[in-house]
């Protein structure tokens, strides 16, 4: 590949999420034209009094922008963690929830909905139980001296199923008038409540996770050779696996706690990346981040414009992504599998 082509490709993957975020500001039930959007962003960034009607300021700056940004970060987190886990566990069929982070977070959120009915507590418990689930999976794997991959997977399966059972228990106990629907909607995923304060809070673990994975991305290649080979290539497998798991879990737990459970992105976006740029994690990891961000922002735009009531994201990701995946599969012949 020529250097100019390479550079333009890298640039487009970096710019694409920002472009999609900007475009999605004009998408929605309340029409806002491009000039108004530019005015609002300009005067908000420069802290000048805005010549635009108050209602436009609210729609663009307080509602659509945080939602688009959060969608991009959440989508990026789910995709980058999924890609990392696929490499780490040497299994193209796993996603970011492999070690139980999603079901743990789902349990935490359900518990908070029943006990506190408070958004902040929902975030905190979802994040806390998401991370707890990963720690438990890891400890189960530790029982067998080292942390062999298969034991981690098994630990994850066990912890996930326990938390799923507990979620069912909470649903059974929940008040069917208001708590049960709240739990069900949370579990289907939504960005509808996004505010800047959410981005600030959940952004911390998400950015730590993303940065860690971006820094370690080439090492994930080596780890995907399997423990024994990675060791013989000079990598301390226990430490490196632990760091990758910690980063991916921070990113996923941060994402899930504000958005609910959004399936599909963590599993399939990395594969779309593999078809486009190949399997080298040095390239695949950042590309997954970009693709996941773009994809979730678009899906969220569809979710809030398609019908009067919002369609939960967990439903739309598969409905929109599935056909797109098949199209790419046909177009790229699967990229070497």
């Amino acid at each position, binding site marked *: 590949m020529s250097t100019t082509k390479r550079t333009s490709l890298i640039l487009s993957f970096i710019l694409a999420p920002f472009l999609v975020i900007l475009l999605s500001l004009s998408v929605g039930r309340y029409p806002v034209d491009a000039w108004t959007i530019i005015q609002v962003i300009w005067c908000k960034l420069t802290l000048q009094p805005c010549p635009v009607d108050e209602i436009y300021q609210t729609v663009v700056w307080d509602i659509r922008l945080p939602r688009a940004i959060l969608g991009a970060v959440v989508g990026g987190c789910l995709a980058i963690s999924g890609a990392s886990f696929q*490499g780490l566990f*040497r*299994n*193209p069929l796993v996603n970011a929830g492999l070690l139980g982070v999603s079901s743990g977070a789902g349990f935490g959120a359900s518990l908070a909905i029943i006990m506190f009915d408070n958004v902040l507590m929902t975030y905190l418990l979802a994040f806390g139980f998401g991370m707890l689930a990963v720690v438990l999976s890891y400890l189960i794997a530790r029982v067998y001296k080292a942390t062999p991959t298969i034991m981690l997977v098994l630990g994850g399966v066990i912890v996930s199923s326990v938390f799923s059972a507990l979620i069912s228990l909470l649903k059974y106990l929940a008040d069917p008038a208001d708590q049960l629907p709240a739990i069900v909607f949370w579990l289907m995923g939504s960005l509808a409540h996004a505010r800047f304060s959410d981005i600030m809070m959940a952004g911390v673990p998400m950015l730590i996770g993303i940065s860690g994975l971006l*820094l*370690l*991305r*080439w*090492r994930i*290649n*080596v780890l*995907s*050779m*399997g423990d*024994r*080979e*990675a*060791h*013989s*290539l*000079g*990598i*301390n*497998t226990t430490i*490196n696996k632990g760091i990758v798991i910690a980063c991916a879990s921070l990113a996923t737990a941060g994402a899930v706690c504000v958005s609910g459970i959004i399936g599909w992105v963590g599993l399939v976006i990395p594969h779309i990346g*593999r078809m486009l740029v*190949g*399997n*080298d994690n*040095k390239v695949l990891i950042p590309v997954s981040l970009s693709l996941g961000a773009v994809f979730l922002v678009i899906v969220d735009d569809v979710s809030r414009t398609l019908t009067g009531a919002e369609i939960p994201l967990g439903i739309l990701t598969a409905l929109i992504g599935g056909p797109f995946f098949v199209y790419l599969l046909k177009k790229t012949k699967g*990229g*070497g*599998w």
Partner: protein
Amino acid sequence: MVALLKVEEISFGYTAAPVFEQVSLGISPGQVLCLLGPNGSGKTTLLDCILGWLKPRAGRIMLDGADITDIPARQIARHVAYVPQIHEKTFPYLVKDIVLMGRASYLGPFAAPSEEDMAISAQALDKVGMSSFKERPYTQLSGGEGQLVMVARALAQQTPLIIMDEPTAHLDYHHELIILETIVKLIRDQGLSVLMATHNPNHAFYLQKNGVDTLVAMMKNQHIINLGGVEEVLSEYKLGELYEIVARIVDCVPDDGGILHQVVPVSTITRS
């Protein structure tokens, strides 16, 4: 001269029953040690100990004069490279990306390979004659080609010692000879040392005939039962005892002169 590798009376067992006990051997620069032994005699386990992947229960392993329990994985990986017996392929990485992974021990935790690492990997691929495959997904290679890529990855590690676990298992005659010729070339041109587990004693005869300083170790019943030069260890009697077979050693005369010995397994011994 400090031996490249010195294994001093090591013992290992997964459970209370030992896989092997009191195993000692050593390799000097430019030498090949062929490790022979029946299935399940612990050859691979011994190699895992030498790679620092398993910890022996007793004894010590000295690498260039340092005990391997005292040095981290990245240091071991700069002294010993490893060509696995079975490499489980998962993702269709490109051949050049696979070879590049040999550079891991020279890179910081957050670093990606530099231009220099890429040049070293390209050279390694060239040495095994696989340069034209560099842009291919390695999942599409044949067994022999895949094995050569694994050798190239080991070469990219730039270690004085390469450990190979049955490098020619599952390969046809042609690819078996390519691997052996590559080993001979590496030892002759670069003074590398190789420790290889093998099921074919003829490999030792081949290496010896091609001017390589070759040692043979026989492993059986938890011990090294014979260790020494090719002529001394590879006798009909000792081979027969090792594998519980009737073995004959025949001579053949290749076109380039000299004599190439070959072991012919004749029949098993049934104990009455």
